């Protein structure tokens, strides 16, 4: 019995460690999204590859986030990430509005929406240290025409049930909560095959 307890303890530790590494180090947050009929396998999402061209040269897209002031504390890597994430999500939601109806794509897109808002929150958190001016620089950065198009698409997708609260599991982005609550119980209008 004692031996079994120890073995269970070690195996539990390994299981927990593997999952912590998968989530926090490898960043495979999509693995922890709820399953079921609506959600497929994020790794199988076809939309991911379909949108590679949108990420090839984001610097050419004038509608992507850009800094409005020279006096800022935004690191270039953060700036590039904001551009990349906006370009990608714009492609997933705006360029291909029906992509979210496919199970695998939905799992990938839901995960990406969480990452998108997490990056925004992270940059705002850093900007807070520098005061209102920096906060407004970061907010302006994330308010490009592409970001506004993404917001409009998210309102659309929640209002017509293509995205629901249960899709996000326990990681509902704070910015999405009021939207998802408002349209709770809506059945999706995805085209049926």
């Amino acid at each position, binding site marked *: 019995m004692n031996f079994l307890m120890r073995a269970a*303890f*070690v195996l*539990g*530790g*390994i299981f*927990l*460690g593997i999952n912590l590494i998968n989530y926090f180090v490898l960043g495979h947050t999509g693995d922890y999204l709820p399953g079921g009929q609506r959600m497929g396998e994020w790794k199988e999402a076809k939309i991911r590859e379909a949108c590679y061209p949108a990420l090839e040269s984001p610097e050419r897209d004038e509608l992507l986030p850009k800094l409005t002031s*020279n*006096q*800022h*504390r*935004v*690191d*270039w*890597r953060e*700036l590039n990430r904001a551009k990349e994430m906006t370009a990608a999500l714009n492609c997933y939601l705006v360029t291909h509005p029906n992509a979210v109806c496919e199970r695998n794509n939905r799992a990938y897109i839901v995960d990406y929406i969480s990452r998108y808002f997490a990056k925004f929150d992270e940059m705002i958190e850093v900007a807070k*240290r520098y005061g209102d001016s920096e906060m407004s620089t970061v907010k302006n950065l994330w308010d490009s025409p592409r970001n506004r198009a993404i917001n409009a698409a998210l309102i659309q997708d929640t209002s017509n049930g293509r995205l629901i609260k249960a899709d996000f599991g326990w990681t509902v982005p704070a910015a999405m909560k009021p939207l998802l609550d408002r349209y709770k119980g809506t059945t999706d209008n995805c085209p049926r095959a």
Partner: protein
Amino acid sequence: MIRQVLTLIVAFVGGFLAVGGWIWAPQISRMMPSFSSATSSAGSGGAWFADANRLGRPEVAPVVRSCIFRVVDVGPDAAKMEPSAGYFILKAGSMQASVAALVGKPGLRSDNQTVFLAIKWGELASCIYAQDDRELCDSDSRAAMVEATTKFFAFAKQAEALKPPIPADEARVIENLGDKLLGALKNHRRYGTLVAADFSSFAAPEIMRIMREEKETRDICKR
């Protein structure tokens, strides 16, 4: 339940440290002689346990914005490039040189590169010190100043130890930069913009001597 989960986490981390320590400890101890010079030239150069309010993010410092493209020549792209990217280029070059030195496989141009990096970090530090003294009350600017100064002295020391010795004119440039920086360090120690705790214990002895011997006469950051 929470206690059991915590116990599991502690068990896993403890097991990893015990097993990992047993396997990797000999390698870590073998790396120690070169560790001190590597950390001061590859890391930020700031103290590991410095007050987080004193040392910020050097790459986004306003002083770096003013100085970096005077030191790092990226050609006509400078206008389009973010200063933090210019700072990253300089830092990436330093890391590459430090790793090469650490593993004992210096590249063909490594001697030149050590001198080049010493001069570049020295020029950046000089440019930072030439700004208004109060600029360095900003935690990001202070971090940039600490990093540039620490890296200059680390690379200068490496350049000094090179065999065959570096050309006399290059040695003189490095020496002049060093004298200039030591003078500026003294001033900033007196102004209260720098304290010993801002530098890591691996910082060059010249820096630590000034931090120890000079006394703060006023605090220019107090309004």
